[in-house]
């Protein structure tokens, strides 16, 4: 094997290993970064990041402002929740987003998580000012999985829907469509209902990305092993052949 071929193999191996290590590292960082809660970007009008009836996952955690009016729909109280370690209930309301604010030219309905109260307290969840123009600022949350069955509530109020998950698809039949698939967690709250604190940064690891990272590093190790074997074998051959030539 000529010195040139040897240099070529070393260069190609180094490149392959570098690429594998880099791709593996990229997957590794993705694995621990993916759990975003609230994105650092300042709040923008919702139409810039999300339109009704489209997938929410790419924009979860983005901060947005929404202009609209509270829809004439029953308020939703989400029971059996925990906030700051305390038993709590959440209030979700339908907000009719104006045709000019959706980005599609038609009105749409957005589920707004108005705030929370300690379980057992009893502020009125119903809308005080229907049809009043409001601007809500908050961050977008992913919808939760819908649950089966209705929760048991001790003293249910007339005209209130009780549930145990923040899942807009559960209300899709009642609320005017199209619906946003994300939920806006409001910063504003209102008397009796405090704004929900942003969830703490989660450190759960993404198994899929870790699997990919390990695979890339294995491929790098493969490349290293093969070129080492190849150089060893060919080096020996070259030594054996040299006296003959």
């Amino acid at each position, binding site marked *: 094997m000529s010195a040139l071929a040897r240099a070529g193999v070393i260069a190609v191996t180094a490149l392959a290993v570098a690429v594998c290590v880099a791709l593996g590292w990229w997957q590794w960082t993705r694995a621990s970064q993916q759990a975003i809660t609230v994105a650092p970007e300042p709040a923008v009008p919702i139409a810039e990041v999300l339109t009704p009836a489209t997938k929410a996952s790419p924009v979860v955690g983005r901060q947005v402002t929404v202009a609209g009016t509270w829809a004439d729909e029953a308020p939703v109280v989400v029971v059996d929740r925990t906030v700051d370690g305390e038993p709590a209930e959440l209030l979700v309301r339908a907000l009719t987003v104006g045709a000019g604010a959706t980005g599609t030219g038609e009105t749409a309905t957005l589920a707004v998580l108005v705030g929370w109260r300690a379980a057992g307290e009893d502020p009125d969840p119903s809308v005080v000012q229907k049809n009043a123009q409001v601007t809500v600022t908050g961050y977008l949350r992913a919808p939760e999985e819908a649950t089966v069955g209705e929760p048991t509530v001790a003293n249910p109020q007339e005209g209130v829907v009780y549930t145990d998950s923040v899942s807009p698809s559960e209300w899709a039949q009642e609320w005017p469509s199209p619906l946003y698939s994300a939920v806006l967690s409001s910063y504003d709250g209102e008397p009796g209902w405090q704004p929900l604190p942003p969830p703490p940064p989660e450190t759960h690891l993404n198994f899929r990305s870790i699997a*990919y990272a390990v695979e890339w590093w294995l491929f790098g190790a493969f490349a290293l*092993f*093969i070129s080492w074997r190849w150089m060893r074998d060919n080096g020996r051959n070259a030594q054996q052949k040299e006296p003959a030539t």
Partner: protein
Amino acid sequence: MTDAPAQSALDPRTRGALLRYRVMAFVTGTFLLVVCFDMILKYIVKIDDPTFLEITSWIAIVHGWIYIIYLVTVVQLWLRQHWALGRLFTMALGGVVPFLSFIVERKVAREVLSGGDVAGESAGDAEGEVA
């Protein structure tokens, strides 16, 4: 494969390496076809059912690990046969190019079974010599 005398003349370790390689070539090749079929459904037919997408990404992950096992069998056989570097790439490529693994596997198996250590020459020729 029906060439009994040539097969019995093989080193049992070579025969084992060949068998492992052939099994993995079949499994990897089949899995790759499933992955490709899934990709067509995902990107061309544009199915966006979450369950389907979840299954698709798991199939791709499983294929990734099966491919690594395949690579181990490839390297084992390749080392035993003292083939050229080019042959290693062709065999490794079999796990990522649809249908290639089946073609390469046939060629490799014929060559090994006929006792041909003439990498690069067509397997047909090598078999002809034995016959």
